């Protein structure tokens, strides 16, 4: 039994058996009565990548590229290949990921199983929208080739299916053509949430990538102040097609629990907001700092110390009424349990392909909140009430604590999905939200 295969938020902490997978063509190991779950880089925040007392199938060595059609921009690779490796391969050929989350240190299999989204959701939809086909290996030895046309019900269940339908052995997906590895970025300050909504829609019309950083500790008239970053891939002349390099910095050890407190976060947020002197700035930047600002710092989750942190990401439908977002921001600001990583984005209307895919049209906000025990859980429970009342839901990849009732209400497709769960696969998340014992 091993402890180190944790989740990114380091809560909850579990023990696992592990089995390293080496080749996508090999059969699954015998389960020995233990439930299995694929585990890549462990960048899911909560227990969707945890399987307490069960077996984690380690996928990092399933890192072979299988086919690369440079004409069509179509890449097929084993599920343990990281987005980091994909970018190093494709950028020099003039391609980019169809969409990408805020870290490149995740596997392609994880991107599929969580149906991840990125700053271009309003254009490209989720990662699953770019997937043309993949192979699913079931514990009975069956290999299912899945695409929107072939075994479409398995496709729908496995995209966003949190690794529960079996082992995803390889994935094929469409790439986006680029002329340059650089992004032309505009950063706009907004003084409050009202201003955000004023510039957000217009930004989505003209920019492929949009995302906002929010100072969630500001109150009153500056409630929801922040910076909106919007960018487009630069034309050929603005830069070359050089891929990124390896990060050099690392957080060497856990910081003590008091390092992040109301005051240090307040100071950080105020400084970050004031960093931009002008109301709007223009820059051309490499894709690496634009999409992956935190990847420069290995093990950044250690900043939160041994107790870890919660990531809270929800989506709520939005039709012009700002009260829900205001209410949530008000609750956070009042609690004083802030976050220096609060990310706001408007999801577009492109339908996510998975039964349990998180993104849907509306406003999404993601918050990192240090784990302070009871008071933190109380705050998140209070936020749940607002999110639920607004018909919103939480992102399973980031969740470690929502109630089974909340999951089942906000993901009514879960019962249909349950028919596709492999009997030999499970996760801490799945047992928790379907009323298991954990």
């Amino acid at each position, binding site marked *: 039994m091993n402890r180190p295969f944790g989740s990114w938020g380091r809560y909850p902490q579990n023990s696992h058996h592990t089995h*390293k997978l*080496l*080749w*996508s*063509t090999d059969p699954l190991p015998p389960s020995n009565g233990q439930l299995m779950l694929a585990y890549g880089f462990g960048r899911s925040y909560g227990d969707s990548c945890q399987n307490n007392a069960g077996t984690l199938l380690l996928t990092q060595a399933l*890192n*072979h*590229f*299988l*086919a*690369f059609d440079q004409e069509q921009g179509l890449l097929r690779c*084993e599920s343990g290949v990281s987005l980091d490796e994909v970018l190093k*391969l494709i950028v020099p050929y003039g391609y980019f990921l169809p969409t990408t989350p805020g870290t490149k240190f995740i596997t392609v299999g994880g991107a599929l199983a969580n149906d991840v989204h990125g700053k271009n959701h309003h254009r490209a939809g989720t990662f699953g929208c770019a997937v043309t086909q993949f192979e699913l290996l079931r514990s009975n030895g069956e290999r299912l080739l899945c695409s929107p046309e072939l075994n479409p019900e398995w496709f729908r269940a496995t995209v966003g299916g949190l690794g529960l339908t079996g082992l995803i052995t390889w994935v094929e997906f469409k790439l986006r053509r680029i002329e340059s590895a650089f992004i032309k970025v505009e950063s706009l300050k907004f003084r409050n949430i009202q201003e955000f909504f004023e510039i957000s829609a217009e930004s989505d019309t003209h920019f492929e990538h949009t995302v906002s950083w929010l100072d969630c500790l500001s109150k009153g008239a500056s409630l929801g102040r922040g910076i909106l970053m919007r960018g487009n891939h630069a034309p050929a002349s603005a830069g070359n097609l050089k891929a990124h390099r390896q990060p050099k910095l690392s957080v060497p050890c856990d910081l003590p629990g008091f390092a992040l407190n109301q005051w240090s976060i307040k100071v950080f947020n105020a400084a970050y907001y004031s960093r931009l002197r002008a109301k709007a700035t223009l820059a051309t930047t490499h894709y690496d700092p634009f999409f992956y600002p935190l990847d420069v710092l290995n093990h950044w989750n250690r900043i939160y110390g041994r107790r870890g942190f919660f990531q809270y990401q929800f989506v709520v439908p939005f039709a012009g009424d700002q009260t829900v977002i205001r209410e949530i921001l008000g609750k956070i600001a009042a609690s004083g349990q802030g976050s220096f990583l609060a990310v706001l984005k408007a999801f577009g209307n492109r339908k996510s392909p998975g039964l349990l895919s998180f993104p849907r049209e509306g406003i999404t906000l993601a918050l990192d909140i240090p784990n302070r025990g009871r008071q933190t859980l109380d705050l998140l429970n209070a936020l749940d009430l607002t999110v639920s009342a607004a018909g919103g839901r939480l992102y399973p990849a980031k969740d470690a604590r929502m109630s089974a009732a909340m999951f089942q209400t906000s993901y009514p497709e879960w019962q249909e999905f349950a028919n596709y769960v492999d009997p030999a696969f499970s996760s801490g998340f799945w047992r928790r939200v379907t009323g298991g014992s954990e």
Partner: protein
Amino acid sequence: MPNILLVGATSAIAQALAHEFAARGANLVLWGRSPERLQTLGADLRIRWGGKVETETVDVNACEFHNAKFDRAVRAVDGLDAAVFCHGSLSNQGECEKDFSQAEKQLRINCLSVISLLTVSANYFQMRRKGTIVAISSVAGDRGRQSNYVYGTAKAALNVFLQGMRNRLHSSGVKVITVKPGFVDTPMTGHLKKGVLFASPSRVSQDILRAIELGRPVVYTPWFWRYIMLIIRLIPETLFQRLKL
């Protein structure tokens, strides 16, 4: 651009080597047991590095086919510059003690199959009066120990064979390199508890590459094994027989 034959290509060390070679522009011929794994590895190498990669399913124990298979490899890339033998099996000492047929199997794969392939490749490179032959042996061949002396016997025999062949081929300008890794973190040692002495396959592959570049006849990898094994070899037999090693 060098053309290199890699035998036991889907092993962890050979995979790491294949990437190092391919990154330097080499064309590769990969031999392995599993066609599926070879296909996967071949595709990956071609996509990442763009060089020529040929694969061939080979049962190394079938020594009678070695000549023909080697010819095919030579033709596939229009002449070979190096042959690297990475195949092997970590013997279960206990089973070998109980049953000679198990020991025989281990000697066949870890020693005889390599000797057969070395014979074929030595003749080829001697005729061309150039080339490099690399065989992965083990520190286990440096002294017989109760914990794995059947494996050690195979590697010791291999070491002497390589030594003699190196001597024979020296005047032809053909390099023969004996690689002696210590513990390497690979599927072969998957059942062993990992300690500080374990090296990664990529570390070992880089050491092998340097040995090829520098023309070193015998390379211990990582380097400290040379000294560990020196000490182990220096212990007098009267004392050594009492040790639990």
